[in-house]
């Protein structure tokens, strides 16, 4: 049968804001996939009216009007404290702090670390795309050894600037009972959604801090085509960043 043009409703999560679609992310960007999983998680949990979505500066800012949930776009690295303030003020709301690896591990590392320490009852989602996407592809704390970026034109040299930050590992080392810490990947969307959902449920149950890092593509700055994009996420990144849950509430641990 021939290809024909019809009118149809796309399979967007209910909480997506159709007026801002097509969204502002580049073709093939992992932000879009993560936000799809997050949207599905919000839909499935039925919390669209309770979520406050905060996005950082970095490509995450492009999601400022992404959802039909009340949203605030903050400063680079500062989404964690803004969402913390919202949550402290109104614990009945569900706060999501959405940021990049630069925002979370570099300029905002003190906020991430201390939100984890204090066990803030918020959900932080961090896009690990091994570079600073929005500013055009500089080295991020997560940049892979040897990876060429705008500020490591000869490849990241671990002798000079170290190895990629292991975020969830770090957060798990300081977070305590009630915290949920995981690393998902756009290479495993079902798992990613499960992690995101658990991270939200953990907040809804009032257990403590939830943190999910997401291995995510940046085809624009990596200068990859679709095949190379998948390869980078599934092979190169996976080699450096183990995917899984690092801390699950309920399991009481002695530190």
């Amino acid at each position, binding site marked *: *049968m021939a*290809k*024909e*043009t*019809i*009118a*149809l*409703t*796309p*399979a*967007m999560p209910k909480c*997506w804001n*159709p007026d801002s*679609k*097509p*969204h502002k*992310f*580049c*073709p*093939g*960007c*992992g*932000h*879009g*996939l993560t936000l*799809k999983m997050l949207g599905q998680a919000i839909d499935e949990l039925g919390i669209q009216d309770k979520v406050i979505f905060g996005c950082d500066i970095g490509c995450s800012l492009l999601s400022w009007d992404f959802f*039909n949930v009340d949203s605030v776009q903050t400063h680079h690295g500062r989404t964690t404290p803004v969402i913390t303030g919202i949550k402290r003020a109104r614990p009945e709301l569900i706060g999501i702090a959405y940021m990049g690896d630069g925002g979370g591990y570099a300029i905002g590392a003190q906020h991430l670390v201390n939100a984890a320490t204090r066990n803030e009852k918020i959900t932080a989602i961090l896009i690990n795309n091994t570079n600073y996407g929005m500013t055009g592809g500089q080295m991020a704390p997560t940049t892979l050894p040897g990876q060429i970026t705008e500020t490591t034109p000869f490849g990241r040299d671990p002798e000079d600037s170290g190895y990629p930050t292991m975020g969830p590992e770090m957060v798990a080392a300081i977070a305590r009972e009630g915290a949920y810490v995981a690393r998902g990947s756009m290479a495993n*969307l079902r798992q990613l959604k499960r992690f995101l959902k658990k991270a939200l449920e953990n907040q809804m149950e009032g257990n403590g801090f939830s943190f999910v890092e997401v291995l995510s593509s940046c*085809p624009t700055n990596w200068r990859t*085509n*679709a*095949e190379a*994009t*998948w390869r980078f996420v599934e092979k190169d990144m996976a080699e450096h960043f183990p995917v899984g849950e690092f801390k699950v509430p309920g399991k009481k641990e002695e530190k």
Partner: protein
Amino acid sequence: MTEATKWRAFSQPGKRASFNLFPDLCKGCGLCMQKCPVKIIIWSQDLGVYGTPAVETSDQDKCIACKMCENVCPDAAIRIIVNPQDKDKE
């Protein structure tokens, strides 16, 4: 705002499911293509939202309705609609 918004879609019917591509959402990233287990997704002559080629299937009858393409599309530009008889099997 309650009504689900409809978009223009290029629809390709097939034995098990139809492949519906929203050209105003597709950015031509090709992620779907790489993930189709039966490798039927190809670059289309039709263009997506950025003026880059959108995608279609070369033979929709070969589609196994796995929805992989729909799932991996960051832009929700594909919708697979499983044919009624197949739906029961799901």
